[in-house]
Structures are given as C-alpha cells and as structure tokens.
C-alpha cells in the first residue's frame, strides 16, 4: 500500500463529485492510500494570484505547511485538480526561486504558527502517481472489463503538463501518459492533437464567447477524430466541456462551424473504475450533463442516466451568509 498525502481541492466536494467517487472506488485496486491533508483550504485557483502576491502564496503556503507537518514519512502530496496541483507546485517552486517571497510567506504563516521549507515536499498530480508510481503494468493486470471499442480522446488541459516545474511529464505539448493509461484499460485512444489546449478556464464566467470558442475548438477536433468520449484529469476541464457543451456548440454553429456529435466528458478515474469491473452506479455516472449512457452501452456497460445517489437534503435555505467583498466588512454575518 503506497501512502500519499492528498489534497482534494474544493471541486472534488462539489462539481467534481464523480471524480471523488470514482477515485474512492479504485483506491484499493491501485493499492494506494490517500490521506487527506487535515483542514486544507482553497488553493486560490487562478483568481487569488491576480489580486495579490504574498496573500495568494500564503494561502497556498498554509496547505503546504499543514502537509509538511502531517508528512509523517510520506513526502509526496497528490492533487487531483490541475489548478490545485499547479498552485501547490508553484508556491513550492517560487518560494525557493525567490527567497524574499519565501521569507514573506513564512512570516505570514508564522502568524498562524506554521512554516514551510520550500523543496521539502514533492507535489504530484494523481495521473503522475498512477502512471509512474503504481505503473501501467499493475493497472493492466487489474483490468477485468477492457474498454475495447471505446474511442477515447485523452484530454489533459493546460496546468498538468505545464509549466511542469519538476519535469514530471514526457512532454509539454503532447504528453503520452494519459494515452498510455487509457490504452492499458483497453480503450482505443485517438491521437488527440489538442490534448493540452485550453478548456477556457474561468472565461465562461468572464467572457463566455472566448470560452465557447476554445471549448468549440476542442469539440471540433474530437469530432474530426470521431471520439466516443473525452477523458479528463481536471474538474474545471470537465465542468467546462460538459456543462457548457451545448452553449459552445450553439456558438460554433452561429459561426458556421458544425459539430456532429455530442461528447460525454468523463474523469479518467471513472473509466478506470469501469475497466476494473466496478459498478458504474458507484462511479459517479449520471452526474454528467452530456449522458455517457449511449457511449458506454456501445461497449456493453450500463451506466445510470441520472444521478442515483440520494439527492442532498435541502437544509434551511434562508439567511445564507453572503461572501465578504474586499473593502467591505462582514457585518451581515
């Protein structure tokens, strides 16, 4: 059993439930023990960095400090979300590269009784662990239901293979790790040329057309290659390609660019779960906007069309505290 510190990130608890569920199902098959960092906080995504410097890094730094305190033999922190992975790596890297930043972050952390020595943890993405620690041979040996006949577009997005401070990946543009893993599951992997191109990130919230153009490009390419599904390693990519797929296709259509198919966007861990013979019901299927039912049934896997988990109980919906905007005090609370 390989032991790792695990940084799930905010999305795993909400929009990427399916990622979390499928991961929890395959943990034991993968022989890995992911120990969640106690009381971790948000990494700030790409937002905090654009507002401030030291606070943004202190925010990330708290997670690193907590992790190194908890490290207990395992020096590796695993993140499942691209942005989280990058931010943790970035803080570790820049705190060392620019000691003045490192010192200031530590000065801030000291306020909370914490400290982090850059370089003392190794920050890795879940896919990296699967391919290089667990190994493709092990994965292959656990496949009971090969994904034979399923055409999968491997999609990594930006922040896993780039900027790659620790040189963990085979390439920045066309890395093959996800391809190899999916192939090990028996899937037919297409040579997806845009596998590391952008999903639009937060632009869905800022300049939707910019985002739809980028999502549209990805879908066009997947369409050209006649993919059945797109496999992702990142909650943000999944959300953008899935929830905004209809909008993006509409946008492309208005530009006179047609996209024939619709693509279920699945986490690679969901596909692993299927290949390992886990019950699709436990793998978060049904939570996707573009249903995987048809694509999966083509390889004889029945997945639920709707979310089968119990609907969350609606707690009292009144009197929700509003987030505090910068420059205003939080007296509403």
């Amino acid at each position, binding site marked *: 059993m390989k032991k790792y510190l695990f940084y799930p990130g905010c999305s795993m608890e909400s929009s990427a439930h399916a990622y979390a569920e499928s991961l929890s199902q395959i943990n034991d098959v993968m022989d890995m023990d992911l120990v969640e960092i106690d009381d971790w906080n948000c990494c700030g995504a790409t937002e905090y960095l654009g507002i401030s410097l030291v606070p943004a890094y202190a925010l990330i730094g708290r997670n690193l400090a907590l992790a190194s305190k908890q490290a207990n033999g395992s020096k590796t922190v695993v993140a499942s979300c691209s942005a989280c992975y990058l931010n943790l790596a970035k803080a570790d890297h820049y705190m060392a590269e620019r000691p003045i930043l490192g010192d200031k972050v530590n000065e801030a952390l000291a306020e909370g009784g914490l400290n982090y020595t850059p370089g003392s943890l190794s920050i890795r993405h879940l896919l990296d662990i699967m391919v290089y620690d667990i190994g493709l041979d092990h994965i292959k040996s656990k496949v009971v239901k090969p994904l034979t006949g399923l055409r999968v577009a491997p999609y990594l997005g930006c922040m896993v293979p780039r900027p790659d401070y620790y040189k963990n990946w085979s390439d920045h543009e066309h890395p093959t790790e996800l391809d190899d893993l999916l192939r090990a599951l028996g899937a037919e992997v297409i040579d997806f*040329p845009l596998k590391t191109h952008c999903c639009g990130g937060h632009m869905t919230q800022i300049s939707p057309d910019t985002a739809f153009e980028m999502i549209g490009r990805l879908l*066009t390419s997947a369409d050209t290659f006649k993919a059945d599904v797109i496999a992702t390693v990142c909650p943000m990519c999944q959300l953008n390609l899935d929830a905004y797929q209809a909008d993006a296709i509409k946008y492309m259509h208005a530009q006179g660019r047609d996209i024939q198919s619709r693509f279920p966007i699945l986490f690679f861990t969901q596909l692993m779960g299927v290949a390992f013979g886990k019950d699709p019901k436990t793998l978060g299927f049904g939570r996707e906007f573009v249903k995987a039912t048809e694509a999966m049934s083509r390889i004889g896997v029945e997945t639920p069309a709707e979310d089968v988990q119990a609907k969350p109980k609606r707690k009292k919906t009144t009197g929700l505290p509003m987030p505090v905007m910068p420059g205003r005090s939080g007296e509403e609370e």
Partner: protein
Amino acid sequence: MTTEKSENKERIGVYVCHCGSNIAGIVDVQDVAEWAGRDLAERGVVVSRDYKFMCSSLGQELIEKDIQEEGLTRVVVAACSPHLHEATFRTACSRAGLNPYLCELVSIREQVSWVHTDKEAATEKSKAVLSGGVERVIHHEPLEPLHVPIHPATLVVGGGISGIQAALEIADAGFPVYMVEREPSIGGHMAQFDKTFPTLDCSACILTPKMVSVGNHPNINLFTWSEVEKVDGYVGNFTVTIRKKARYIKTELCTGCGICQEKCPKKLIDDVYEAGLGYRKAVYTPFPQAVPKYPVIDRENCTFFQKGTCKVCQKFCPTDAIDFEQEDELITVQVGNIILATGFDLFDPRKVSQYGYGRLANVFSSLEFERLTNAAGPTNGNIVLRDGVTTPRAVGIIHCVGSRDRNFNNYCSVICCMQSLKFAHLVHERTGATVYNFYIDMRTAYKEYDEFYQRILEEGTLFVRGKVAEVTGAARSPGEEGRLIIQVEDTLAGKQRRIPVDMVILSAALQPRYDAKEVAHKFGISCSANGWYIEKHPKLDPVATMTEGIFIAGCVQGPKDIPTSVSQGAAAAARILGRIQQKEIALEPVRASVDQDKCSGCRICNSMCPFNAIIFHEDRMVTEVNPALCQGCGTCIAACPAGAISGTGFSDQQILAQIEGLLMVNFEHARVAELG
C-alpha cells in the same frame, strides 16, 4: 620544524600595470606600487613601479633596465592573467639575462579590476595578490624549458570539408598526414548538400575534386570506417591507436563496381547520409562519389551476420573481394600534432514537439530537405511531400529551431538564416510554391550574404517576423482542412496569424557531436558548457586548444558555414606546419621528481599517474618519475606520505609562501584583536 619565514636574500622588482584604465580605473595602482616598495622592502623588494602598459616594449624595457642596473634577481608583474602575458615578461627577463622562470605574473585585472567594483577593496586585494606573488617568487628556481622534438606527421580526425582542407594543406607542404573518418567515406555534411549559399554553386562539384585529392595524395594515409581508440603521449610525440573497423571487403581486390550493393537483398533507411529520407543496402558506399570507392558491410544489418545465411554479395562479386572473416584492426601511428575536425550533429527537431516533426508527415528537417533538393537524392531533386509525388503549393520555413532557445540551445547556429534563404530560393525555383520564412532576426552578415537576402525578397518570398508558436493539423475552418497550419504572431503586425501550408521545413540547430565530450576527454581538451570545443583564445588563437599539439577546425569549435570552416582548416594546418618546420618545441618545465633517499617504496603514489610516468623499481624498492611522460599535474606530490616527491614550478614552498603572502594583507576590520 617551526615555519619561521625564510631569510630572504633576493632582490625583487615589482611592476604594477595600469593596463590603461582597465586596472587603474578600479585599482589605485600607484598606491599598490608605493605600498610594495615600502612595506615589502623587508621581503626583498628593491624596486617597485607602476606603468601604463607593462606589456608595451617600453614597459618591458623598464624591467630589463632594472634587472641590469639594480641587479634584480626576481621579478613580479601585477597585470593581466598569466595565460595572456606570462610569456611576454619571461622573455623580457631572459633578454636581460635573468632566468625567465624567476619571474612571476599575478593577475589583478581578470581577478581584481574586472570583477570588483569597490575601489578600496580592489586595491587591498591587489596588494594581497601582489604580496602572494612576492612571497612565492622568492622560492622560484631557475629552470630550463624542456625541448621536445616534433614528429613531422599529423593526425586529422574527421573527413569533412574542414579536415579535408587541413589535410591537403599539410600534405601539399610535403609532410605526412593520417586522416581518420568514422563513416565509410569522407565528405562530411557538405557531401549531403545540393547547393551552397550564397553563390548557389553545386556542393558536389566543388567538394568532389578535393575528396579525390585526399584519396590519391601520396602524403595522406586515409582511414575511413575507423575511429581513434586511444591517444598517448604529448605534443610532438603522440602515439595514436586507430581502430580500423572491419569493412568485410578486400580493398586490394575491390574495383568499386557496385554489383554487391545492387544485389544485396537487405534494404534499410539511411539515417546518416540520406538523413533518414532515403534507403541504402547493408553493403554500401554512402554515395556515388564516395572516397574511397570501396563499400562496407554494415554488420548490424547484414543478413549473413544476423542470420547466418545469405552471402549474396559474395556470390556476385566479380573479383572475390568480399571477406566475411575480416576483423577490426588496431593500428598505431606516431604523430607530432593533431587536428580535430569532427563537425556537428543536427539538432533533433522532435524535441520541439509543437512543430510536429515526426508526428506530422510533411514537416521536414533541414537536412532532409537538403536531400530532397539533391539531384542525387531520393527524389532526384524533386521537391515533393512525404507521399513522394505531390508538389507543395505553399511552404513554410521556420528559423531558429532549437537555436536561440533556452529550452534547447541558447546559441545562434549561424548558418540557418542563409540556409533558409537558400531553401526559399530552391522551393521558388523548382516548384513555384508560395514560400514563407519565419524568423526572429535576419542574420546575413558576411560577404555577399545580404545581397542574397535581397535577391530572395525579389523572388517574392514572404517574410514573417515571429518565432512560430506551433504547427498543427487541427483545422479551425474549412480553408485549413487537410493542410498544415503555422500559428505565429506576426510581430510586425502585432497580430496572431494562422497560415496554411503544405510543407514545413525546420532549420534545425547545429549541435556538438553526441560524443563530443567523450572525444574531448580522449584528446585531453575542454568543452564549453554547450559542448563546443574551447579554443586557446577566442580572437587571437581560434584554432589552437589549451592542450599543446591539439588543434581544432570547423564546426567542432562552434557553428559556422563552409567558408569559415575551410579557413579554420587551413589555419590549423598553417600553425602545425610552422611547428614541424621548427622541429622542436619548448615546454614548461613543470615536472615532478622523487628524492630517491627519502622514498621508502611504500607505493602509494604508484596508482596516481594516468600517464604511466611513475615507475617502481622492484630491485631498489624505490619509485621514480619519468620526466618525458610526466605532465606536471602534481597529484603524486600531494600523495607522497614521506614528502619525497617534489615538483618544479609549483613546489610546496612556493605555494605555502604564496598562501602566507596572500594572507599578510587583511581587511582592517576583519581581524579580531589578538587573544590575551
């Protein structure tokens, strides 16, 4: 037993150089000189002067005059690096009748004024450095240089244009040359080209006659399909072991008729001469004009060697020249000097994965394109796509692939701009296709080069200033479908552009040979951080190396075009010819020797010498150093537990005295008051 400072009876002259403002701008040279004259008087300094340019003839005369008039017995010059002017000042001493090795040059330019900014600290450090030199020079001994005869033969490693030029110059002057070439034929990269810029003359037409001269020259002994295995000895007298790889051809019988190649059933991709774009057989001469004309059997790919049966070539050979029993031969030759002209490798453009080389069929490397345009190449000079038939309608040529890029090589590969212009011309002339050149900066600095650029502009080639971001097959619009799209910022327009083309040519960087470091080590020379061989002086001695007797020429020293490679080959030859004419060379007398009375024969030093200069006499149980083989590194001196080994030039006394001298001057605030 105590290390009291030795009594000094020497009369020392100290000379502090201004080097114009190079030193004097930071170091208060006058203060340094006055200080030495005053404070180092008790150490024997009787004259101390500063002067504008010590290396000028007036500066040297100053020293000579003082030696004669003041009876100086030691001279210390504080100026530039000893690597620059040690010889100058030694010669001056010699002229004045003082043994040249009683002069010490200390560096206050490279090691002080050029690297420090604080004037006070620089002046103080200069004093320390000078004082180190004064203490050291007291312990100098008069020495005589070692005179070594120069063997008249020369080894040239590498049979490209640079090596060919060098070999012919020396051979024509009447001295023997051994040329060693790794491939089956000489010719190098130049033999792969069709045209040469800017004159566009045919590469083969100008190269082949030279290759033939090498092959026929009575003074040149040519070893192709061979590599240097080992180099022993030193300048004037190197012993070189050459591995002549088995050709499996009896060259004395072979007529070079080519029937074996025709009949050989094993066809494979030729990665070397055809740059992967064409095929060859398992028995082959790389190209028709090859020198020598004899083929080689490539053992790795020969069906007989791999499977045990075939021998088709043997059956058809009209002169019975095939010999499967041949073995590698080791040949030893004596030479006085060596020229390394081993050239370059082409950068592997697959590393720039955004350009799609290896993934997208119609992305070509520059060397592939050279073969594509070559009349003797795989397409007979037709410029076509990878399918072998389609003529491109639009071609994009990308500059700086793997050059000027910190991700790969941070240097400029020099030839790519001109090469890309040549490609543009060839595409235009032979296909009429639209040609785009994507460049960061156009570098056409040489005679007739910019004129060539003008000509290509006139021909209608389109120039886009911008480093290409990516080459992709992922179309965004119907107009892009089925084509290669070059995505780039047109930096002059300030806009991102997507330009559809049919063919992309990558002007890839020139890189040091994959085994450059290993070869450098074999010959005892150094590589720069990039892997190019380091010349003795970048401006004034560009073909010599820091190792006496080893010269470099052509791209092994850094990327360069054909004219410069030829010039360097000739320059290296000229340097060597001068030495051969002199018949001997004077070497630094830095050598180790063993005090036979003190040596206990413990044999600890016996494993210290990589040059086998240390000999142990079993009968007398003592060790001895052979001065002819000793290179003067001093490792055995430091190893001897009995202190029985000593070394000239860098003796214990000299170094210990220098340490003392260096530490006599201290930053005033640095020292805590004496205890007690």
